[in-house]
């Protein structure tokens, strides 16, 4: 299988390490993976015979100096459109507009390539459109990594609970805020807890999306659209972050309780009934990625 990677940040580089580390296991699973291109924000390295994972990581660290396969200015979108492969792996950062991931995913699906992504942005902005395009082009869209990293979500519900009806989901979907609140429950104030999270590697220096609940809300929107058949966007989520959580934490300590940033969604029966009537397609079964 020929794959191309778009986005070489922490997740992209970890993926390349994993592909190298698990190459024997992947072969045993019948998967002969060839990375035919990798694109970062500056350019693209490509080789239809397959790039070496070790070399990709080494030359990326060196700013691609001396790597003949790397062409500066050969952008990700162009690479998605021009390079032949079976699967495009889209791992650019998540943004409110969904870009650049949204254009990359649309281009890949239009080129009849299946897409695997960990990028929440495009799915929050255009879930239905992307699922429909994938179906129309007889390719597949996988996005398990968008919610809760390796916590089983979409595939588990689709594969293990086909004959059941999901009524609600309640969860802790952001590790950074869980760490910060945990530190506050030990007695730290919000700023000290954030500083500790950054120091321990749990938070980026720009932590707004996490502490303001935006990251959690994006995940909830994807769950709503994929598992509940909604057509939701961020504006449909009532969001409260954790910047002003100190009073609640103190009250919880007095009552021997815990504070968590909780994401909740329950089946909207009226809306789903209308939806079902309109499309004659039970929403529960309208999974996009499987």
């Amino acid at each position: 299988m020929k794959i191309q990677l778009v986005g070489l940040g922490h997740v992209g580089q970890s993926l390349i390490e994993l592909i190298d580390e698990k190459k024997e296991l992947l072969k045993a699973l019948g998967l002969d993976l060839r990375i035919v291109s990798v694109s970062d924000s500056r350019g693209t390295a490509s080789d239809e015979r397959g790039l070496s994972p070790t070399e990709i990581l080494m030359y990326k660290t060196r700013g691609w100096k001396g790597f003949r396969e790397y062409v500066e200015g050969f952008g990700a979108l162009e690479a998605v459109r021009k390079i032949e492969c079976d699967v495009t792996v889209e791992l650019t950062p998540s943004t409110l507009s969904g870009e650049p991931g949204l254009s990359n995913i649309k281009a890949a699906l239009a080129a009849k390539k299946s897409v695997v992504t960990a990028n929440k942005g495009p799915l929050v902005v255009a879930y239905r459109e992307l699922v429909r395009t994938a179906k129309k082009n007889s390719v597949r869209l996988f996005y398990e990594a968008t919610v809760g990293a390796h916590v089983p979500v979409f595939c588990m519900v689709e594969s293990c609970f086909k004959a059941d009806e999901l009524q609600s989901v309640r969860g802790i979907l952001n590790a950074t805020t869980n760490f910060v609140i945990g530190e506050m429950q030990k007695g730290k104030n919000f700023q000290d807890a954030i500083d500790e999270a950054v120091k321990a590697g749990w938070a980026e220096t720009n932590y707004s999306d996490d502490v303001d609940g935006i990251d959690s809300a994006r995940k909830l929107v994807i769950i709503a659209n994929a598992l509940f058949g909604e057509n939701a966007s961020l504006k449909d989520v009532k969001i409260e972050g954790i910047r002003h959580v100190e009073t609640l934490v103190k009250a919880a300590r007095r009552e021997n309780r815990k504070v968590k940033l909780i994401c909740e969604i329950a089946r909207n029966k009226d809306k789903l009934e209308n939806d079902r009537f309109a499309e004659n397609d039970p929403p529960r079964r309208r999974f996009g990625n499987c």
Partner: protein
Amino acid sequence: MTVSPKMIRPDDALATVNEGNMAIKYTFKTSKEIFVSAQFLGPKQTAYAVLNDIVRANAKSSC
């Protein structure tokens, strides 16, 4: 749909989710409550989920 800080009881499964970890409680009509919790250590876990999807993309069957 809501995202908000909530005070929860110690016997709520979500109260047991340690710092830096994530968890989801699903409620189904027949199967009732299913609770999944996972230790999150960083980008390697996300990358693993991506790799697993690549394996699924290669498979002929769905999941």
